[in-house]
């Protein structure tokens, strides 16, 4: 297994109290595999990724427990300079907002080349040649001329390609893409997702795709982890989860999205709001919004039940949820 996150806990100490952002998350990614982490804002999907990358703001953040095994090594026990070596060379991240993730006062060539100067000890000249090569690879036209341009001179889609190029530069074995296409238009989103999938195949990388878009997930993922209030509530191979969700939250999400292929009647809406992370309800965190909630849901935290060999659901009534369709 390329990456294994085991029982990870992350909390943030704020003035309002302790916000429990991640509460015992387990997931794993193999080489060449795409794991989609699906969740709404505040579900802990990005915080988990930041903990894996080692870019969590600490304080206020604090990793309260768990292990992050990368190729067998526990990253949480690694020294800072070891981690720095892994970051960039072995794992890289693509952020949502390319414009604010790129340095506005450096040319894209300098930013791409920096990877090679720092990690590979190349000269500036060689690094620039490498940068042009990378820009060609992510299909930026006229790379030779554009290598000297600044981020603001590129369109949104091209900036995201540059982010991808930067992440790919050292051919890492794991890429974490945090909402990589959320800020892009659909036609450009399709281009960028295609590119990402192609490079992933070529380099046989593991990919963690963090998103809230059920459509994007269906398009590219092999397996899904659905997060709610800092926990994984359901994991499954992508085909099964869309056909028959085993958790009421997943089911609600699938039913609440408007469809392209039909003019809807009234949409099913999940009631209420996601919980405040400083005051997660007792029992199952989803119980106040759940149409199936019983007394046991308000008192006992559901474990991740084994639905079948590859599927898990954190619902006391996963069987009923499966059957109810």
């Amino acid at each position, binding site marked *: 297994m390329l990456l294994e996150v085991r029982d990870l806990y992350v909390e943030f100490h704020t003035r309002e109290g302790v916000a429990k952002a991640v509460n015992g998350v387990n997931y794993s990614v193999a080489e060449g595999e795409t794991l989609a982490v699906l969740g*709404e*804002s505040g579900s802990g999907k990005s915080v988990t990724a930041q903990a894996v990358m080692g870019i969590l703001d600490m304080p206020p953040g604090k990793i309260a427990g768990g292990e992050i095994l990368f190729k067998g090594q526990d990253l949480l026990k690694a020294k800072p300079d070891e981690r720095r070596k892994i970051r960039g060379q072995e794992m890289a991240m693509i952020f949502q907002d390319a414009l604010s993730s790129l340095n506005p006062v450096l040319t894209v060539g300098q930013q791409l080349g920096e990877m090679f100067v720092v990690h590979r000890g190349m000269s500036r000249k060689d690094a620039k040649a490498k940068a042009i090569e990378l820009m060609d690879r992510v299909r930026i036209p006229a790379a030779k001329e554009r290598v000297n341009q600044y981020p603001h001179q590129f*369109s*949104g*889609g*091209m900036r995201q390609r540059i982010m991808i190029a930067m992440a790919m530069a050292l051919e890492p074995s794991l890429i974490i893409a945090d909402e990589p296409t959320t800020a892009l*238009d*659909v*036609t*450009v*989103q*399709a*281009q960028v*997702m*295609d590119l990402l999938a192609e490079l992933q195949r070529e380099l046989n990388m593991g990919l963690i795709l963090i998103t*809230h*878009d*059920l*459509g*994007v*997930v*269906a*398009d*590219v*993922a092999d397996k899904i982890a659905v997060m709610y209030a800092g926990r994984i509530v359901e994991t499954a191979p*992508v*085909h099964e989860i*869309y*056909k*028959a*969700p085993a958790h009421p939250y997943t*089911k*609600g*999400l*699938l*039913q*609440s*999205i*408007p*469809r*392209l*292929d*039909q*003019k*809807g*009647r*009234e*949409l*099913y*809406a*999940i*009631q*209420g*709001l*996601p919980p405040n992370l400083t005051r997660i309800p007792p029992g199952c965190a989803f119980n*106040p*919004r759940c*149409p199936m909630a019983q007394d046991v849901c308000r008192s006992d935290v559901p474990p991740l039940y084994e639905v079948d060999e590859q599927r898990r659901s954190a619902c006391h009534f996963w069987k009923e949820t499966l059957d*109810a*369709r």
Partner: protein
Amino acid sequence: MHADRDKGAGTGGGAAGSTLLSQASEDAVAPYTEGDPILQVRGLAKHYPLTQGILFKRQIGAVRAVDGVDFDLYAGETLGIVGESGCGKSTVAKMLVHLERPTAGAIRYKGEDISKLSGRALKAVRRNIQMVFQDPYTSLNPRMTVGDIIGEPYEIHPEVAPKGSRRQKVQDLLDVVGLNPEYINRYPHQFSGGQRQRIGIARGLALNPEIIVADEPVSALDVSVQAQVVNLLDRLQAEFNLSFVFIAHDLSIVRHISDRVGVMYLGRIVEIGSDAEIYDHPTHPYTQALLSAVPVPDPTAREHRERIILHGDVPSPANIPSGCRFRTRCWKAQERCELEVPLLAVPAEFRHVDTPARHDSACHFAEEKRVVPPEGELEIPGPAEAPGDGETSEAEGDERS
């Protein structure tokens, strides 16, 4: 929800074309009668000048953000406008509510051109056309209480609600949008994104407008909250017989809420028709590419679904290609597309046949192509099976607590 309207709206493209002609030839204001479009937009354009020089500014060009948009809006219907960023859809919205003045063209509200109004006449019209903004975090003043925000329209239009009754009116509005009326003295930061959007909607409703222009009203919200707000908009429309101009980039939401849909590209509408005409029988290559690029929430679709991947980016509106503005990214482009601007009309090949492809499409080589899998082919559980289906009030009840 507007089944009675759908039929008329479906052929609206053609009918609109003829009204345009007759009105243009008369060049007079036809009296508004029931059944006429409540809003007629003709040749609407907004050009922002590009200047050079500091002391002696001269214009060296223009950003043609909106460049000739025509559409009709009927009472009680929802017109969806979709397009990618920079296509001018938000500028159209701003012109409709008079936040921007058009460079050219007319906006006729019940037959009267409102684009050049000012002063008292403008104020009177504005009451009837209200806007809901995209970002519920920046469109509410953080220093004002919810009561002041929703009640502010009454300061400007005191005739709608005399001073004494305002508080009651605001509380009624809060109730209508599914918020607890006791929240009247709270500040925006005490609400979640979905609740704030409800406040924005309540403010839009305050003056009992006939038309609401909603610019990306749900795109800043989480998926599970989006559905609540979309249902609220649906319900309000039926309750108050509102006409909506619903602007969004999310094609699925637009289909869900709209009776008719217009697709914009680079400042123009390239195709317009009923929701089924546009989504199931698109004839413009841009619409087809746009629809095929939308990820469908069904993993089985990825193997057999045809994808049209467009190359390159949208050209700059400061430098619009000659002829058809889509030709630089179009796989069908030929010489004719470079020389001749395609008009938004029913393409010749469909003009005399009775098919859903018979709707306005601005393409020289229009042909029908289905890119969205037919209904029922997707495997995900449909909304019909939803537990507690149809009970929006439940969701709202929860937000009140």
